[in-house]
């Protein structure tokens, strides 16, 4: 035993007077040498000095222990602090020592057998005279409950809701068929104290699967460890977790025969996760019609220089944002891009500080990187305001979901010729584009957004400043 890190730690077991109705003393968490004392109880009138040796809880997760070996045998005289028995827990083997002097009158749980934490594993008599009595007691113990049996604690607390017995659904009765349960199902049954005989197996050949046990124990199925894994766990944000957890089981539809399940790609899983998270943000929406004739004219002019409408809009947004810092403190404009099998929002950092042409060039690079999946995290995760344009599809207006962590998202529809009446009552046809901003009402209020949109509209209607 050269190293202090090894498993043979020494632990004293607790024991109490058997004749009194003392609460069992079970250590909750134990590390290296600890002694458990039943101190104040000493005062009680002691009718018999027969003590039970209990299975100690050697770790916080231990529910039962196996007797590796009895260091002492029946009839041995024990003195306080001596190692009596070696117990194997789920983690390690430990020597357990006695806290009392006495005689090991009887061994209730033999070597190699298992007993639940707190069960009597041996009987300690204080004097020779009591040995016989102790033995009788031990005999009754062993008779009452075979210690090797699984921890069938006498009080089967709130019994787990059994699956509504459906005998008709049970596999064709072939007389007394033996129960077949998979290794993991057996483990789970033990863990959740489910009587495996009472479970109807639904697996192949009527075998009991881990899912059957989980259903019987009334717990939601744990995620399958392999295969189509559902969305990653949400971050510790408390309310989110509940939503996500609630959403997870329901998102698994009953399998359709002949169908195949296509697992999410990492990107799809991430999108899914972010979308669910967005439900926790209180959002509101404000729409605004913008006349784009001037912008369209400008676009025609700058198009040959490689400027796209997205870049123009991004620049206009950036310039409007500068005037409305409440909507966005730093001008990092994310622009949603649909790519094969997903959606990503590359970020134009400090969009207000770049001129239109540089911005266009930068945008081009980002889109190329996005398509080849080579974006660096800071190139898609640092956005503070998102621009989403579906105008090229002819969509006239839509409503965007605010990505978590951002203040607002602007949904841009197509610019369409519209009949408008001006203040003087003259009708004319102008190109109108509907933009719709979704914002987080925790930080941005309606008036802020409306003011921002008015500024944006003015910039678009007088776009000369964009090229400056």
């Amino acid at each position: 035993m050269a190293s202090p890190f090894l498993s043979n730690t020494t632990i004293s077991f607790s024991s109490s007077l058997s004749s009194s109705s003392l609460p069992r003393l079970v250590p909750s968490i134990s590390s290296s040498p600890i002694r458990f004392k039943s101190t104040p109880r000493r005062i009680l009138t002691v009718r018999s000095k027969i003590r039970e040796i209990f299975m100690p809880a050697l770790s916080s997760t231990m529910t039962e222990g196996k007797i590796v070996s009895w260091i002492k045998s029946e009839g041995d005289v024990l003195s306080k602090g001596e190692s009596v028995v070696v117990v194997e827990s789920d983690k390690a083997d430990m020597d357990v020592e006695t806290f009392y002097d006495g005689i090991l009158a009887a061994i209730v749980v033999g070597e190699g057998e298992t007993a639940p934490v707190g069960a009597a594993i041996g009987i300690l008599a204080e004097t020779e005279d009591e040995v016989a009595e102790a033995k009788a007691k031990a005999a009754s113990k062993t008779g009452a409950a075979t210690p090797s049996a699984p921890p069938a604690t006498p009080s089967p607390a709130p019994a787990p809701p059994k699956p509504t017995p459906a005998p008709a659904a049970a596999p064709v009765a072939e007389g007394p068929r033996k129960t077949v349960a998979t290794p993991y199902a057996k483990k789970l049954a033990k863990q959740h104290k489910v009587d495996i005989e009472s479970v109807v197996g639904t697996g192949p050949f009527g075998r009991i699967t881990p899912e059957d046990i989980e259903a019987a124990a009334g717990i939601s199925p744990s995620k399958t460890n392999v295969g189509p894994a559902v969305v990653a766990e949400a971050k510790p944000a408390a309310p989110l977790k509940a939503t996500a957890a609630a959403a997870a089981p329901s998102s698994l539809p009953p399998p359709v025969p002949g169908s195949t399940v296509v697992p999410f790609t990492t990107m799809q899983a991430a999108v899914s996760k972010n979308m669910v998270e967005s439900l926790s943000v209180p959002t509101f929406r404000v729409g605004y019609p913008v006349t784009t004739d001037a912008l369209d004219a400008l676009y025609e002019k700058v198009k040959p220089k490689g400027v796209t409408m997205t870049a123009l809009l991004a620049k206009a947004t950036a310039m409007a944002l500068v005037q409305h810092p409440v909507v966005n403190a730093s001008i990092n404009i994310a622009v949603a891009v649909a790519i094969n099998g997903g959606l990503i929002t590359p970020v134009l950092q400090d969009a207000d500080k770049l001129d239109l042409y540089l911005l266009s060039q930068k945008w081009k690079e980002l889109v190329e990187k996005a398509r080849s999946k080579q974006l660096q995290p800071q190139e898609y995760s640092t956005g503070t305001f998102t621009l989403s344009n579906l105008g090229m599809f002819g969509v006239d207006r839509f409503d965007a979901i605010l990505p978590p962590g951002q203040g607002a998202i602007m949904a841009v529809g197509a610019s369409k010729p519209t009949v408008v009446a001006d203040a003087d009552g003259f009708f004319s046809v102008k190109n109108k584009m509907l933009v719709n901003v979704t914002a987080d009402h925790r930080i941005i209020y309606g008036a802020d957004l409306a003011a921002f949109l008015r500024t944006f509209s003015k910039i678009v209607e007088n776009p000369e400043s964009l090229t400056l």
Partner: protein
Amino acid sequence: MHSTLSFSQATTVPRSNYAFDSHSPAFALSKPINLRFCGLRREAFGFSYLTQSCSSRVRFSSRGHSKKISASTGTNGTPPKSFDYDLIIIGAGVGGHGAALHAVEKGLKTAIVEGDVVGGTCVNRGCVPSKALLAVSGRLRELQSEHHMKALGLQVSAAGYDRQGVADHANNLASKIRSNLTNSMKALGVDILTGFGTIWGPQKVKYGKVGFPDNIVTAKDIIIATGSIPFVPKGIEVDGKTVITSDHALKLEYVPDWIAIVGSGYIGLEFSDVYTALGSEVTFIEALDQLMPGFDPEIGKLAQRVLINPRKIDYHTGVFATKITPARDGKPVIIELTDAKTKEPKDTLEVDAALIATGRAPFTNGLGLDNINVVTQRGFVPVDERMRVIDANGNLVPHLYCIGDANGKMMLAHAASAQGISVVEQVTGRDHVLSHLSIPAACFTHPEISMVGLTEPQAREKGEKEGFEVSVAKTSFKANTKALAENEGEGLAKLLYRSDNGEILGVHIFGLHAADLIHEASNAIALGTRIQDIKFAVHAHPTLSEVLDELFKSAKVKAPASSSPVSEPVAV
């Protein structure tokens, strides 16, 4: 190749033996030893051959064949000086390969006979492809361990695998190593003779492919290195689909939901690691009372706690799988268990698949050993400590050696190679006896298990017999910086040693990269380095090797360190 084999056995061999016996009964009776390699024997052999080929000309219609025979009779007449080769190795597995490379280095003209594929079991159906599967299972298990990932601050979603992709990885690795092996031998000028090799007589090997004429080559020395095949106990029906051996499992054609693994040794344990990582549930069936027999009991116990108990594995110990029926007619695989002691039926299991990992049987059938009066023991070729083959009368067969799984001394690829090198040393004039105690063994589970030398019970037994005290030192991976950095602190290294003189008796490691760590100990044992000296060796910090460093330092040896090997200070 099997057809050639039975053919040659059924017709040629008994006939020649018969002819030999009937023509020279006096020799056979009076001086059986000399007969095997003296000139007379050669004549007798050739003569019998002629008789045989004359008498059965009708059946042996191949002209090439008879030509060869006359050619070989021709050479038989010449003195044994003119061998075709200095050394012929039958079997191009890892053992044969190791021997061939060393033989070339020693200047021997070498040929290697292979009837199947170069690389043998290890490369094609053993250690190599299984390492590919284990590399996958290790990563997958790590990625799926939410707890472990979280502790490292990593977020991984939806770790999954593509079965065919995994299988291809294993297969590609095997082909790559196989071509490496082939090329290394070709580059060195080792002749690779394709065909099934048979001992045709003293210093003579016959080889040939099915449907082709046989060739006979002579060599000064011959090494048998034919290896082994999976052992399947009787009563078990292997169909290659639902009841399989490691040969099939390595192809990973199917990942069953529930697989029973018969045998909990290295092979079974490694496959349990693979299958559970890929999502299967596993049931071990072990004939002995303990899982993982053969490992040091303490290591076995710890390994069980880490590799078995928390995983989706259960087990039946002390039982034989006496009957296994593959899945068919809508029924699952049915396994009948019989109590190992009482021999009474105990239980019946219904599973989706069964992997038979009950060990390996030597592949020596049809090797023509009866031509030289060698009787195998349970299939193993009997050898002495120098790998020299022993015949039925307990005498050494000159110029014939057997290495690797075929002799059963230590059924490990690297042991075979070491034995081959030892043989080459002997035939090139340097006596060499291989110490098997210094050969390490490893099991590539996650974490790995490795060992060298004696287990604790063996060491104690030896200590009692030879009258020395066995001491034990242990260190934990929990105290190792690198292991903790990897968040893999689970593990133990154990040293068994003599406290009086510091001799290392055995080292057992369970923990991260244990298989790589063992070599410091195995080299120390091989070179006879004592603990009091090796404890002064310096290890880079922080590395896993410090686990062993600490292990040696924690040993309490009475003997003083020997004087430093570096006597003069060296400037750096």
